[in-house]
Each structure stands twice: as structure tokens, then as C-alpha cells.
């Protein structure tokens, strides 16, 4: 708990820092962009001058999604770009956004595309300068297999491979023999989700229906958290620290919770029983907001925790470049390793928390006759003791 508190404090500080600096940075970037975009300026040997090291930009660059998967040095794995525009679908390799000198260039498809701040935009030439065509870009739908999507697919493949192997073992060896290999590694985790997450929160009667959902969420988050900690290919993508990923899962939880919600749940939201009518009127909007804040909190918690961890590690490594001396690594690397250890814990913890809260929300939505049940239990307990 202590480490979590310390971590959240650090996270808070760093997020504040990044927030504070981001405005500044983007102003700088824009200036640089216009300079670069100018073909006359780009051709000048000014590019060889050492650029000032920008911490925020470096860190954000590592955390953000990308259209190619950086492997090492100047080598990147190009990924397919899939665009939908009013003129239809377009598929091409992201390598086409780079020339042989690793400079970003315009790709001429149905429109003129260019990667601006890591995202594909439609550009137009104004006074011999490429600027973003804001109106046209609004109609651009980017379904590209980005680094995060590719990493997500890798995690899906890993999950399918490992879990189907584990499941096959039950068929092969039967239920009477002790679990072996992958099976013995997976079974405790499955049992953990069942006994510590699903049953205590949903109850023994209804948990079975939600087990596949909870298990899938748990393993997907867990594997992506772990893959995010691997600094090189096929890890390195920040999937579970991406708001789109957490949003999708949170929406899934939202859908499942509200579809399985019973009358009792809605009654507690819109017309809280056992209250004065004025109190009921007062509580209804608050409870209604709660319906949405629950998945939103899920979304932000996972996103913030994982992103914060990555920012921490990257910040520590960036110290070396800030001080411009290799001796800084004497401090930076041990700290980065230490934070990395904590991140391993956090990776598991966040998967657990996400799943547990999902189970709790489902449990709240499917709970029946809250007060009577408690009363009944109380009586039973008295009778038992």
C-alpha cells in the first residue's frame, strides 16, 4: 500500500509537470514543424546540427502510438495504414511516409497524407508550405494497424496460444491428474480470478455466467501490462496505457453491467428505497452520474497507472541525457530497475483491480433484495452461532 501511495504521488507530480510543459512544447514543435515542412529549409544542412534534447517530447514519443514499430537505430517495422475517407478505403505501408533519409514525407493517395505529431493528416500546400487541412482531416478515419494495434494482436496471439494449450491439457490428461506445464501455471490464476474476484463480488449463484468475461479482461489487461514493460520488440508498445484501450474495455464493462442489471439495481438508482421522496429526487441524478463514473474511473485508473509507470521509467533514463553524462546512469539505471520492479507488481495489481471492480459493478447490478437479504443473513448468523 505504501509503495502505491508513493507511486501515486510521484505520478501526480509527473503528470502535473507534463501538463505544465506540454503547452510550451507544442508551441515549439509547431515552430519546428513549419521550419521542417518548408522544403527549402529541410534541404539545408541545418538538420545535421545537434538538436536540443527535449525530455517531454522524447517521453511522449515513447508512450504515444506510432504508425511504425521501432526496432533499433533507424530500423523500424513498417505497419499497414488503413484509411477511410469520403473517397473510400485506402491501404498502404507506413514506410511510404518516410524517404530514404528517414525524413517524413507526403504520401500522395486519394489525398495528400502526412504524419503530423504521430497521426495521419491530410495536408495542403499553402504558400509552398504544407499545412494540415483541418476540414478534410475531420472526414479522415484512421483504422491503421498501428504499433499498439499490432502489439494488441501479439498479445491476443499469446493468449490464444497459451490458454488453448492449457485448456487442451484438461482434455488430454483428464481431471483426475494434477495439472502440468502451462496448465499448472494458468490454473492458479484462473482460480484466483474465480475465488478472489468473481465469487466474493458477484456471489456463488451468478458468478459462473460472468467468468469468461472477467477472465478475458483480466488476462488481456495482464498480458498487455507485461508486454508494455518489455522495452524491445515485440513489446515496447504502450497498449494498456493507451486511453483507447482502457476506454474500450471500460465500455465493455459498462455494457455488461447495465445489460445484466436487474430491477432492484435501477430502483436503487432512480428511486432509492427507504428514503424521503425529496431525498429520492436528490439522489437520482447523483446515482445516475455514478452509472457513468464507474466505467470512466476504470478507464482512467488503468490508463493513468500504466502511463505513469512508463513516464517514470523513461524520466529516469532521460536523466542521463539531461545531465549529458554517462555517470548519471549510476543513479538513473538502479532507480529505473527499482521502478521496473514496482511496475511488475503494478501490472498484476492493475489487472486485478480492473477485474475486481468490474466484478463488483456486476455484483452490484445483479444483487437482489439488498436489505432483506442482509436481514435474513443476520438472522441466519444469529441462529448459527
Amino acid at each position, binding site marked *: 500500500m505504501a509503495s502505491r501511495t508513493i507511486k501515486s504521488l510521484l505520478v501526480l507530480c509527473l503528470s502535473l509537470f*507534463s*501538463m505544465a510543459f*506540454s*503547452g510550451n512544447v*507544442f508551441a515549439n514543435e509547431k515552430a519546428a514543424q513549419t521550419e521542417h515542412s518548408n522544403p527549402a529549409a529541410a534541404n539545408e544542412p541545418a538538420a545535421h546540427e545537434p538538436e536540443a534534447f527535449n525530455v517531454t517530447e522524447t517521453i*511522449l514519443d515513447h*508512450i*504515444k*502510438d506510432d504508425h511504425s514499430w521501432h526496432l533499433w537505430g533507424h530500423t523500424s517495422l513498417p505497419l499497414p495504414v*488503413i484509411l477511410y475517407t469520403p473517397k473510400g478505403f485506402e491501404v498502404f505501408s507506413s514506410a511510404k511516409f518516410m524517404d530514404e533519409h528517414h525524413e517524413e514525407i507526403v504520401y500522395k493517395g486519394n489525398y495528400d497524407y502526412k504524419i503530423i*505529431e*504521430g*497521426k495521419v493528416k491530410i495536408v495542403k500546400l499553402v504558400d509552398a508550405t504544407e499545412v494540415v487541412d483541418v476540414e478534410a482531416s475531420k472526414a479522415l*478515419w*484512421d*483504422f*491503421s*494497424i*498501428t504499433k*499498439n*494495434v499490432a502489439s*494488441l*494482436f501479439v498479445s*491476443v496471439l499469446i*493468449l*490464444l496460444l497459451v*490458454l*488453448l494449450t*492449457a*485448456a487442451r491439457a*484438461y*482434455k488430454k490428461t483428464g*481431471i*483426475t491428474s494434477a495439472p502440468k506445464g502451462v496448465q499448472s501455471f*494458468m*490454473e492458479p490464476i*484462473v*482460480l484466483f480470478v*474465480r475465488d478472489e474476484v468473481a465469487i466474493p463480488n458477484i456471489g456463488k449463484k451468478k458468478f*459462473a455466467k460472468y*467468468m*469468461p*468475461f472477467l*477472465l*478475458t479482461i483480466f*488476462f*488481456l489487461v495482464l498480458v498487455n501490462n507485461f508486454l508494455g514493460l518489455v522495452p524491445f520488440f515485440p513489446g515496447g508498445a504502450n497498449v494498456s496505457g*493507451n*486511453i*483507447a*484501450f482502457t*476506454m*474500450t*474495455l471500460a465500455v*465493455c464493462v459498462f455494457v455488461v453491467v447495465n445489460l445484466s442489471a436487474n430491477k432492484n439495481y435501477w430502483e436503487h438508482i432512480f428511486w432509492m428505497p427507504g428514503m424521503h421522496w425529496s431525498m429520492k429526487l436528490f439522489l437520482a441524478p447523483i446515482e445516475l452520474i455514478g452509472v457513468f463514473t464507474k466505467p470512466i474511473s476504470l478507464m482512467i485508473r488503468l*490508463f493513468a497507472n500504466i*502511463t505513469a509507470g512508463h513516464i517514470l521509467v523513461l524520466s529516469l533514463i532521460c536523466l542521463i541525457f539531461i545531465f549529458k553524462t554517462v555517470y548519471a546512469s549510476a543513479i538513473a539505471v538502479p532507480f529505473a530497475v527499482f521502478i521496473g520492479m514496482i511496475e511488475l507488481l503494478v501490472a498484476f495489481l492493475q489487472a486485478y483491480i480492473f477485474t475486481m471492480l468490474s466484478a463488483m459493478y456486476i455484483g452490484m447490478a445483479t444483487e437482489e433484495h439488498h436489505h432483506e437479504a442482509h436481514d435474513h443473513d443476520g438472522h441466519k448468523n444469529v441462529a448459527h452461532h
Partner: protein
Amino acid sequence: MFLLEVNPLVLPDIGLVFWNTIAFLVLLIVLGKFAWKPMLKAISERESGIEEALLRADKMKAEIAAMQNENEALLAKAREERAGMIKDAKETADKMVSEAKDKAKQEYDRIISDAQLAITQQKNAALTDVKNQVGSLVVEVAEKILRKELSNKAEQESYIKQIAEGVKLN
């Protein structure tokens, strides 16, 4: 809105949302059908099997304990019976021995008394016989003596006179 515009980190990309939804649904369906279902089924089956086996073991234990108790009771009863039987046998034996002793004594007494009786009878018979023989011998001797003494007439008559004098006619 300002925050969303400023920080690209909190701006979800439609592409990732789209692919993520597909990936999640595929995982949910495929894993749900081919991984979670058989796994959970096997685990719960195994658990119920273990529970059953434990229950069965408990039941067996109770049964064995009951059987042991029964055996012990039976053994105790058998021991008791044996003791009783031994006691009975001893008693019977003692009785038989004493009875035999009694009977033997009676027989002995009877034989002794019979023998005594026979001895007495024979003694009496012998005595009688001796008496008879002595009598007859006496008579013979007396006859012989008398014949010799009464061979002359004078003597005969003196003797008769003598006897006659002895007989008193009253």
C-alpha cells in the same frame, strides 16, 4: 475540451478502439468457448470429485471406526463368554470329581460293609460248622466211651440208676 486538445495522451484513436473491440470480442468468444469453458468445467469437476472423495473417506473412516467398535464389543463379549464357559467347565468338573469321590466312597463303604457281613456270616457258618463237628465228635467220643463203659451189665445198671437218681420227679 482544452485538455483534450492539448494532451494527445487522453485522446482515444478510433483505429485502436475499433481493433481493440474486435480483438476483445474474438478473445471473449474463442477463449470463452475453447479455453474458459473446458478449464472451469474441469476444475469444478475435479473439485467436486475431491470433495466427494473426502466425504467418502470420512464416511469410510466412520464406518471403519464403527466396525472397530463392533469388533471390540464382540471380542469383549467373546472374552466374557469364554470366561463364563471356563468357569462353568470348572464347576462341572469339580462337581463331577466330587460326585465321583462321593460315589467311590459310597461304593467303598458298601463293599466294606458287604465284606464285613460276608466275613461275619462265614465266621458264623464256620463256627456253627465247628460247633456241629465238635458236637458230633463229642457224641462219637461219648458213644465210644459209653459203649466201652457199658459193655458189662452191672455197670449199665449202675449208670442207669445214677441217671435215674439224677432225674427228680417232682
